[in-house]
């Protein structure tokens, strides 16, 4: 059991900076996800925590113990690899027990633990098979089992679900979350899939260009993204963005974009006031966009996609396309006129010069979606 702390961790590969400066604290028994687009440095960060990659600078602590000088085989970590990396010449049972053998655990105990782990993952019938005789999902379970059989301080998972088909991935997400609850250990999970990050994590660290953009709970990240990147990366379908200008109209602050005018909340704060007269980017999640017969900004239906319970309607507003998520059924036809209502209390406002959020939605959208629709 361990708290994992990163201080100013940095990694360069021959002059190319992969991880610029990452400081994070992963609490004991926490499930923390590093999420970001490919090349953002998330996997490199994980490999440095693991000890597979030497750090160019900074320090990693396991329970306040610095570990930078220790190679992977001396650190108290277990890992699940993206390609599973099962040993092809060993049976499932040997794969599971390999680390314990290296740790000089008595044979009898290894056998019991292998059986336990296999039973908990539902692979007890596969123990004598070789990896190449297993399906993708079965291999994934063995890879997982090879990590959880260990009594490690931290469990590191590097995109463990990315090679599975969609159906299986959904099942495994739930199973992983349950596993974490049962094991009550520190999990550090790397993925590029923001859905995985949202559904499983206690906290999410969104990374880009070797830097952590925001580290917070999934609710917080979704409701109050710290900058444009986090806002655009997290959430599916993604947030709508409109570039415009903040104007002062007497006491009120207005955001204007072509025909769109949104009145910004009164208690918007000093940061918004400073933007008055400047350019700004307004963001709003599709579920916070309402479609009405009239009373909002007029536009035309561009396309409507059925998502199941909801319909994702793309509306053309002048030059821009705005997506709205509305409950099914929706009977608007292509090119039909429609009126778009942007709920003022749900808008985000970003400073385009540095992408920083200057105004976040007042309430966590995910929590009161019903009301906004």
């Amino acid at each position, binding site marked *: 059991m361990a708290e994992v702390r990163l201080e100013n961790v940095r990694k360069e590969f021959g002059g190319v900076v992969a991880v610029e400066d990452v400081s994070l604290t992963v609490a004991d028994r926490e499930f923390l996800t590093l999420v970001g687009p490919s090349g953002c440095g998330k996997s490199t960060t994980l490999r440095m925590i693991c000890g597979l990659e030497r750090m160019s600078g900074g320090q990693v602590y396991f329970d306040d113990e610095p570990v930078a000088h220790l190679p992977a085989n001396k650190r108290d970590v*277990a890992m699940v690899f993206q390609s599973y990396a099962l040993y092809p010449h060993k049976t499932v049972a040997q794969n599971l027990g*390999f680390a314990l053998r290296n740790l000089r655990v008595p044979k009898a105990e290894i056998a019991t633990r292998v059986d336990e782990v296999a039973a908990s993952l539902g692979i007890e019938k596969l123990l004598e098979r070789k990896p190449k005789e297993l399906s993708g999902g079965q291999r994934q379970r063995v890879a997982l089992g*090879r990590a959880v059989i260990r009594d490690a301080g931290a469990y590191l998972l590097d995109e463990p679900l990315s090679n599975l088909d969609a159906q299986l991935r959904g099942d495994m997400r739930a199973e992983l979350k349950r596993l974490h609850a049962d094991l009550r250990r520190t999990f550090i999970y790397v993925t590029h899939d923001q859905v995985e990050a949202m559904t499983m994590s206690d906290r999410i660290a969104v990374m880009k260009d070797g830097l952590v953009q925001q580290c917070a709970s999934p609710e917080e990240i979704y409701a109050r993204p710290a900058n444009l990147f986090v806002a655009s990366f997290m959430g599916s379908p993604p947030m709508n963005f409109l570039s415009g200008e903040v104007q002062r109209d007497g006491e009120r602050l207005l955001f204007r974009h072509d025909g769109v005018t949104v009145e910004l909340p009164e208690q918007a704060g000093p940061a918004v006031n400073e933007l008055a007269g400047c350019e700004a980017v307004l963001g709003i999640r599709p579920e916070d966009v309402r479609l009405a017969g009239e009373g909002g900004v007029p536009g035309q239906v561009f396309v409507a996609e059925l998502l199941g319970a909801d319909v994702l309607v793309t509306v053309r507003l002048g030059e821009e396309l705005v997506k709205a998520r509305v409950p099914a059924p929706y009977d608007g036809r292509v090119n039909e006129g429609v009126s778009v209502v942007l709920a003022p209390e749900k808008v985000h406002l970003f400073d385009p010069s540095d992408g920083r959020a200057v105004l976040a939605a007042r309430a966590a959208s995910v929590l009161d979606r019903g009301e906004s629709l």
Partner: protein
Amino acid sequence: MTKKVVLYVLAIGFALYLVVPFYWIVNMSFMHEADAASVPPHFLPDNPTADNYVSFVNPSAKEALVGSNAVADTPFAVLNSLVVAFSTAVVNLVLGTFAAYSFSRLQFRGSQVLLIVYLLTRMVPGIAIIIPFYLVMRTLDLLDTYGALILSYTTFALPITIWILKDYFRTIPLELEDAARVDRCGWFRMMWTVFLPISAPGLVAAAIFSFMTAWNEFMFALFMTSTIASQTIPVIAANFATDVETQVTMMAAAGVLAVVPPLVLVLICQRLIVQGMAAGSVKG
């Protein structure tokens, strides 16, 4: 249709071309001297006999004189060849594995150049280095010992061994090594318990290649050996051939003995050999 006919005619023709010469010495090796000399020849042994092979262990007085005692020396020469070829294969694998691992995993400065330099050493014919080699071995007092031969053959086979292994090692995913590290293996343990077992096919191909190189080599053996303490089977077989008194049947039997070990190896591992040889050479 004509294509099929041409194909089968060619296939049968080649099959005969490949097999008949070898069949002939096998045939001869099971004949009595008198039958072998008959005109026209027997294309099957009429009175098959294993006498020729028995003679190697228990030569008659007349046979003992042939080719400076070649008959009696044959079993020892086979043994010498086995020892030398096996040792060469082992030494090559050990040295080759280290070098090939560094070529396949660590992109160090000048690695490409070094790799090509290794290969270029094979451009120099053995004859060009045989004299200095002889003198070095004389200085080290290794003449007429296994050591001289094993050292020579290692230099022959090592560049190719490295090449074969390097190509094979590159096919092994890096994540497997990472997984082993996380599973608490140091480098040597990782190599021994994970990397090398997975590389088995490449290692076998390289070992067979080294074994064959050592088994077949003649020129260095001719220079470096002088007695049956280290003479290998090609040297003894040549003694049969250069003596006019040699019985054809005995010579054939010695030839068959010299072919059996490499032939068995090749037939057991044919798929590996074809893969291994093809891997590095043809990528275009």
